[in-house]
């Protein structure tokens, strides 16, 4: 078990490193940062001077090592745009995105799990098909469009919910709902198929033979087994939700990390972009590891390993 954990950790680190190298290379070879900063009227000398000041004229590997060295000490560089430490920028923007992500996955589970169970209990008939269609439709919705439509309906026409920014907890509802749609189809499908298998299993037949209540059979016996892979998938889906939070944050004007990333890309503030990409990669990798651990923890058969 420990060996497996260590190996996974090492792999995870390597993945993060690779992603880091990729994003570093991307942001340093494309375009010319100094030109962006100096402005359209700057002369060639001032551009060159700026380049030298920022250390952009050194060979790429040297720049990378320098960056990595500083990053190891917690210094992710300075934002060109905001004139503050990148690490500080990220730290202030992360909480919002995280909260959004957690609320979104909670909504997704609250919707997908019961629907998946229901679909499995009605396997093959009208309800199952209807739920399947809803899941497919949810998968086909462009998230930004859904966000805009919800803003129109709930924010303006009905005036129930705020449509921009996050002044209090109600501001999270609409964007989290939109984000939840990313995860709902996968979780629903997995729950449904897991429940279908569980319902047909021998141990559920035994539970029925013991005369247990329907609730006990469906929830205690069937769902417990069907839920094992679902939890793991939910963790990974959270990773996808966070990675795709840009769009929703932009639509709802929420100043999270995704929004920060988008702004920085537009303005060419590449130290920030690099850090944001790395952040999401690290989060994803951590969540995948967590998913593995959760999967093992829930299945008594695997715990012995």
């Amino acid at each position, binding site marked *: 078990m420990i060996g497996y954990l260590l190996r996974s950790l090492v792999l995870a680190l390597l993945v993060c490193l690779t992603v880091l190298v990729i994003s570093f290379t991307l942001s340093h070879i494309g375009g010319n940062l100094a030109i962006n900063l100096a402005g359209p009227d700057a002369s060639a000398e001032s551009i060159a001077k700026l380049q030298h000041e920022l250390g952009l004229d050194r060979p790429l590997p040297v720049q990378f090592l320098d960056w990595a060295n500083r990053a190891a000490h917690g210094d992710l560089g300075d934002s060109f745009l905001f004139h503050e430490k990148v690490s500080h920028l990220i730290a202030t923007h992360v909480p919002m995105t995280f909260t959004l992500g957690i609320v979104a996955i909670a909504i997704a589970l609250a919707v997908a799990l019961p629907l998946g169970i229901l679909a499995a209990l009605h*396997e093959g008939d009208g309800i199952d098909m209807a739920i399947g269609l809803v899941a497919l439709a949810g998968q086909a919705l462009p998230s930004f469009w859904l966000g805009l439509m919800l803003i129109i309906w709930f924010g303006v026409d009905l005036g129930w919910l705020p449509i921009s920014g996050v002044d209090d907890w109600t501001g999270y509802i609409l964007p989290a709902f939109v984000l939840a749609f990313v995860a709902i189809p996968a979780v629903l499908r997995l729950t449904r198929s897991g429940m279908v298998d569980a319902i*047909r*299993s*021998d*141990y559920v*037949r*035994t*539970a*029925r*033979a*013991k*005369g*247990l*209540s*329907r609730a*006990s059979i469906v929830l205690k*016996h069937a769902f*417990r*087994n069907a839920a*094992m892979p679902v939890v793991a998938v939910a963790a990974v889906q959270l990773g996808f939700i966070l990675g795709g939070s840009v769009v929703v944050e932009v639509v709802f004007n929420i100043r999270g990390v995704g929004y920060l990333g988008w702004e920085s890309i537009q303005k060419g503030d590449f130290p920030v972009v690099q850090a944001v990409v790395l952040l999401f990669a690290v989060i994803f990798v951590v969540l995948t590891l967590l998913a593995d651990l959760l999967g093992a923890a*829930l*299945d*008594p*058969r695997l715990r012995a390993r």
Partner: protein
Amino acid sequence: MTAVLEIEDLSVQFGAQAAVRGISLTVRRGETHCLVGESGCGKSVSALSVMGLLPRGARPNAARIMFGDTDLCRLSERRLARLRGDRMAMIFQEPMTSLNPAYTVGSQMTEVLRRHRGTSRGEAAARAAAMLERVGVSAPEMRLGQFPHQLSGGLRQRVMIAMALLCEPELLIADEPTTALDVTVQAQILRLLAALQRELGLAVLLITHDLGIVARTAHLVSVMYAGEIVEQATVAELFAAPTHPYTRGLLASIPVPGKVRRGERLGSIPGIVPTIDHTFSGCAFRDRCAQAINSCAAPVPVREMSNEHRYRCRLDPAWSGQNRCGLVTAKAGSSSRPP
């Protein structure tokens, strides 16, 4: 001898296919009734019908299924569920998969008591441990805390038996309980079941394809073929005077050490079990039977040889001239029909 279970004219259909076609049998208190037949003959389906555990798509109907004074056919699913695990219990063939891998043995056992008797957790655990001991499981308290995957097949089947008997049911249905187990363990489990039957006065409906088990455990036997019971008798009668050609064929297929001479062919019944749909009529065995004639395609009468011995065939009880000794060796090149 009181009848605990009386099935009258049970049929089960799966879509167009008729899996069970009008069977009737009785299980009495303290006795074992074996339902024997080859794979696909409908014996498991019959057992599941009694408990109301058929899968989706199955359409059962019966004249009556009397469990004590209650007609199970008339019961709602709710009321039937109350009986299951309490007054009637069932154990299955595959102990490896019949227990929930996510919960401990103790949790799965105690939930039966808590459901049907409202027992407290502690009391239920104590009773579960006691029952485990009774079925021959060593260190019962430790076992309660273990997960199914930590137990061997034989142990798991003992747990299943213990679990089924916790509420002291009147009827136990056992669907091939030893098929998936090692031969040595098989014998132990069968002995255990026999002992429990004596102690508790259990009525047991035992499903099996193994005539050896029938000989060892049964009081009454029903031989099933293609959804019908083709012969029904006490165990002594069945082995002494098997009358239906299928029964004879089955018995002749058992190689007996010492009786089969070297170089002789083993008995077998040519052909395969037919799939029956609801339009079928007549004897299902006629394509494989050496005595078949045209009139076998018409509905076949049930004939009685004695009070408890019935068979479904047009042939006269004395048809072979050889009523005694069901074990017949086969002649080379022929089907296993006695001359």
